[in-house]
């Protein structure tokens, strides 16, 4: 789950919703929190829908057999309805797959969705903060762009790994 948080947190940071200007980090932080809330609600809604559908004996086998198709279409439709980016849809799909393959109990699934959304938001907040600090540093031109972004993501990943091991 930690790998998914880092990979898709980075993906959302680079290709997610249009970020606020780096000069206004508080606004950027607000957008990150809103995106995380949307991610949590969308994921939880689809997980609840899948759990509800699996309650009916007549369709339980079909729901479990075609689970990827079911949540894939549901997450695509919900992402389009909310006018979200493609990266958001891919993140929701990946999160639901990972959560539903580890848990069967709905309350545990929703708890995991909360952990994933919070983890992604924490990763993005750290990333935003460090990028803001970089604005006031003299980064060499040869390091600007992807090299510095990947370095930042790597360092944040190391810190979060320590926190993750301490928490779980």
């Amino acid at each position, binding site marked *: 789950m*930690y*790998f*998914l948080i*880092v*990979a*898709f947190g*980075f*993906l959302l940071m*680079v*290709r997610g919703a249009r970020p606020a200007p780096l000069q206004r980090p508080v606004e950027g932080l607000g957008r990150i929190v809103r995106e995380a809330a949307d991610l949590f609600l969308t994921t939880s809604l689809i997980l609840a829908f899948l759990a509800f559908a699996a309650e009916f004996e007549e369709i339980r086998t079909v729901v479990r*057999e*075609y689970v*990827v*198709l079911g949540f*894939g*279409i549901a997450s*695509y439709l919900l992402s389009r309805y909310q006018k979200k980016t*493609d990266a958001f*849809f*891919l993140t929701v*799909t*990946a999160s639901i*797959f*990972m959560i539903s*393959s580890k848990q069967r109990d709905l309350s545990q699934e929703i708890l995991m969705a909360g952990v994933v959304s919070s983890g992604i938001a924490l990763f993005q907040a750290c990333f935003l903060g460090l990028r803001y600090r970089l604005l006031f540093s003299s980064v060499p031109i*040869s*390091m600007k*762009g*992807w*090299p*510095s972004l*990947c*370095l930042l*993501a*790597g*360092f944040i*990943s*190391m810190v979060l*790994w320590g926190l993750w091991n301490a928490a779980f």
Partner: protein
Amino acid sequence: MFLAYLPFMAYPYGFFKAGVAALWIVIFLWGTVFFFWFTRRLFPEHSLKHAFFLWLIVWAQAVWMLTKLPPYWIASVFFLTPVSFLDDTTKASQVRVFSKKVPRYFFERILTGAGFAGFVMLLAFVREVGENNLGIQAFQQPAGMLLVVAAAAFLWKNQPYRRKR
């Protein structure tokens, strides 16, 4: 290329399995580009993108049923697919099938796929060596790969021939 690699971080695969998954992604990418290139005019306006995502979801389900490969790979295919492909404003019908642009278009996609497979295998090899042979703990988490990719991005950005421009 790097964004397409990101989903691989969620796969707990070694060198061989990562290579097989990368090969599948590349073959699927080529098939997708080929399929949509010749059928794109059949889709109603502004529906190509929806059809593309539905195509991805259906294949994710089929591959999951057959091989139990988690569907993260559709993100890789999405990021390897050319941007203009999903752009509603691009008028694909203006490019004739027998135009000179067609071979170049497919050649670029073939190069992209081959480059991606090579990139994934290289990183999987580095991860395997770093984690198992050298025992570097950073490779047991995404940080190790992110630092390797940062080094690769630095080398790519500072190629000698680019500086001469």
